[in-house]
């Protein structure tokens, strides 16, 4: 404990000059508060644009008809559920190496949103699978590894909530985040590595997308909306976490005074 405090004071001088100064909770708290509403409005705007294109501009698909329109939430949600887990693992690694408390808080602020997107991808996938494949669910490598991702999210949330001591819960959560990150490339490449019922990727970095351009634009707008939404919600959530964790500091006392005066 003493060791950790010493390292932090030792870094204090460097922090003011580098990017690391944002790692100080009292610096990040107001920034997150100012940025979150902008991201929320951006998400709303992108979502309206994406849905408009998805439902009124994008044409009917040649083999699936109208049911393919589930893609405008299914794919962005699935992408987001994988990205968020990688970002959580990144913050967990940063937290373990640099001993920055804010990194662990960011990881914990992201987990519920990642779990939500993961569930959405499974739910919409099931509703999409019934009319196209002829089944809600199969235990192929893609679907099974995505279900495992949901359990990893829930395990992370349960574990970090269950351990009282915040330093220990941060570390335990970080281990799940890092170990579970191995599952993300497995989900992504499962359709290439094994025979799966799930089709391959329509959009990838290595080749031209196999989608009509208006369909693609609608899907990408929805993906950007999901990004902006994730920023907004995780910033709001991390602000509550910061207040709780830093409640013994002067600046939180000042913030609480200000909030009371405003109310």
């Amino acid at each position, binding site marked *: 404990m003493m060791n950790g405090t010493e390292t932090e004071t030792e870094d204090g001088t460097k922090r003011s000059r580098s990017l690391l100064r944002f790692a100080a909770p009292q610096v990040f708290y107001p920034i997150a508060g100012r940025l979150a509403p902008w991201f929320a409005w951006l998400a709303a705007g992108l979502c309206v644009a994406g849905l408009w294109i998805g439902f009124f501009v994008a044409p009917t698909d040649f083999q699936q008809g109208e049911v393919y329109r589930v893609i405008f939430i299914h794919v962005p949600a699935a992408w987001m559920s994988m990205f968020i887990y990688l970002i959580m693992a990144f913050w967990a690694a940063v937290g373990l190496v640099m001993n920055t408390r804010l990194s662990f808080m960011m990881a914990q602020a992201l987990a519920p949103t990642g779990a939500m997107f993961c569930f959405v991808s499974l739910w919409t996938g099931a509703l999409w699978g019934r009319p196209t494949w002829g089944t809600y669910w199969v235990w192929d490598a893609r679907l099974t590894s995505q279900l495992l991702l949901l359990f990893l999210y829930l395990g992370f949330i349960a574990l970090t909530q269950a351990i009282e001591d915040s330093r220990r819960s941060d570390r335990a959560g970080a281990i799940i985040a890092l170990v579970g990150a191995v599952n993300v490339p497995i989900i992504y490449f499962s359709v290439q590595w094994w025979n799966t*019922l799930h*089709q391959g990727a329509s959009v990838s970095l290595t080749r031209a997308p196999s989608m009509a351009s208006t369909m693609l634009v609608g899907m990408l707008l929805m993906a950007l909306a999901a990004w902006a939404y994730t920023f907004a919600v995780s910033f709001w959530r991390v602000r509550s976490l910061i207040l709780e964790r830093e409640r013994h500091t002067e600046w939180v006392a000042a913030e609480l005074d200000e909030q009371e005066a405003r109310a």
Partner: protein
Amino acid sequence: MKPRSKRLMLLGSAVALLVAAVALVLSAFQQNLVFFHTPSEVAEGKAPVGRAFRIGGMVEEGSIRREADGLTVRFAITDTAKIIPVSYRGSLPDLFQEGKGAVVQGTLAPDGLFHASEVLAKHDENYMPVEAQYAIDQAHKAAQTVQQ
């Protein structure tokens, strides 16, 4: 060594070990992760004997026909190298079509006929307007006429 670089080293080696362990486990379970076998694998005798398994491939063009009872459907599934005849009683998914992907679950009879208990359609990752598909079909036809 600074404590920070030491932690980074430890973390890095732990992650490397973990990745290696997962790679080993995955290669060991390779067989169980296979959702379906291809007709070629079945022909080579790689499919499990005596229990239900799945075959995935393309529904052979012109192979779908209904039996006299109106419920049983016969078709053939192919990976362009080998062909497996399939018999199935039940309703088919909307996307089940000749020339399209399908996955059938069931057992292989000694006479080589696959008795399916479940038929799933496997669609590809292409999404395009109906008109575009029509244009592609026309282009295909034109190309075939030229070849002939």
